[in-house]
């Protein structure tokens, strides 16, 4: 017996990325644009979605894929909006993962009416660390940071803030009650992801939400232009 070194040089997430591309192909075939929305737990993703989807996004037909470790609380909250909402629990056969990956999203595809929607919003598991590492076949990634979380988060979770193209700063209605400096936050963000687009919103009062709605409304055209 002797030892042989075998060169591999393969991305450790190659399998995930392969499945992500397969997801992407299925989404493209059905003409569906996919948004992956991430944040820490409690930053306000679901409340923002409730607010935006209550009035719709132009004429777009929307579907939502809710990712949580367990339960259907988020899907239940969106049920009254009369849009297709699928709940994906990472503890149902996936070991309670703290993030969605391409395989989990692929497993949910049969329950999503792809032919009846234009935009699929995937609300990821609340977590500032792991979701950033796993692509799921999305067209765009955005994250929500809330002013209640502290203005230094970009410096502490650089990968999450670098992997997205839009940072939505939520709960601005609380600014007078918290020690959050928007200037300090912007400065951390500009060091980690210089020039990244950002918006300030309050899901609670509705301030700034229309700008986010307009941003989302432009996604399908942008995705079509990218594949043309």
């Amino acid at each position: 017996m002797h030892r042989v070194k075998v060169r591999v040089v393969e991305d450790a997430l190659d399998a995930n990325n392969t499945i992500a591309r397969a997801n992407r192909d299925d989404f493209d075939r059905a003409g569906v644009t996919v948004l992956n929305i991430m944040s820490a737990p409690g930053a306000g993703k679901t409340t923002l979605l409730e607010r935006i989807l209550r009035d719709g996004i132009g004429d777009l037909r929307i579907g939502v894929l809710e990712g949580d470790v367990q339960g259907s609380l988020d899907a239940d909250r969106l049920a009254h909006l009369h849009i297709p909402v699928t709940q994906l629990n990472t503890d149902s056969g996936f070991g309670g993962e703290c993030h969605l990956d391409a395989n989990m999203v692929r497993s949910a595809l049969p329950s999503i009416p792809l032919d009846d929607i234009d935009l699929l919003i995937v609300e990821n598991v609340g977590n500032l660390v792991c979701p950033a590492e796993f692509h799921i076949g999305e067209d765009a990634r955005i994250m929500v940071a809330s002013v209640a979380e502290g203005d230094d988060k970009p410096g502490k979770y650089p990968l999450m803030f670098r992997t997205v193209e839009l940072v939505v700063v939520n709960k601005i209605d609380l600014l007078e009650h918290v020690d959050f400096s928007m200037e300090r936050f912007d400065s951390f963000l500009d060091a980690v992801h210089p020039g990244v687009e950002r918006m300030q919103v309050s899901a609670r009062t509705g301030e700034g939400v229309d700008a986010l709605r307009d941003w989302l409304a432009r996604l399908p055209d942008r995705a079509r232009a990218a594949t043309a």
Partner: protein
Amino acid sequence: MHEFSIASAVVDTAVKHAQGRPVTVVTVRCGRLRQVVPDSLHFAFGIVSKETVCEGATLEFELVPARLRCEACDSEWEIEQPIFRCPTCSTAEVTVLSGEELEVDSIEVAQDEEAECIA
């Protein structure tokens, strides 16, 4: 936090390239900008590799430094802190040269003397 997912992926990749041969070493290159904790990965690897040809293999973890280049002034530098602006000219036209990789670089397998060539 997700080292188990990554360890599973590493074991699957190593098993694929081992083609049935026992694996003695798996070398993983992990960029400084990735969020992998080496101790957690070692721990997860030990568990996930059980009952595969990787059981008992040593996981070698190479940390790759984060090197950036400024497209405006051509300087190159290494970072320890997540600051993506050029220290020389302050622009944000920065490319990441290394530090974002997470790959199985190579494996070492035990092979019979007679079986020199594997298709």
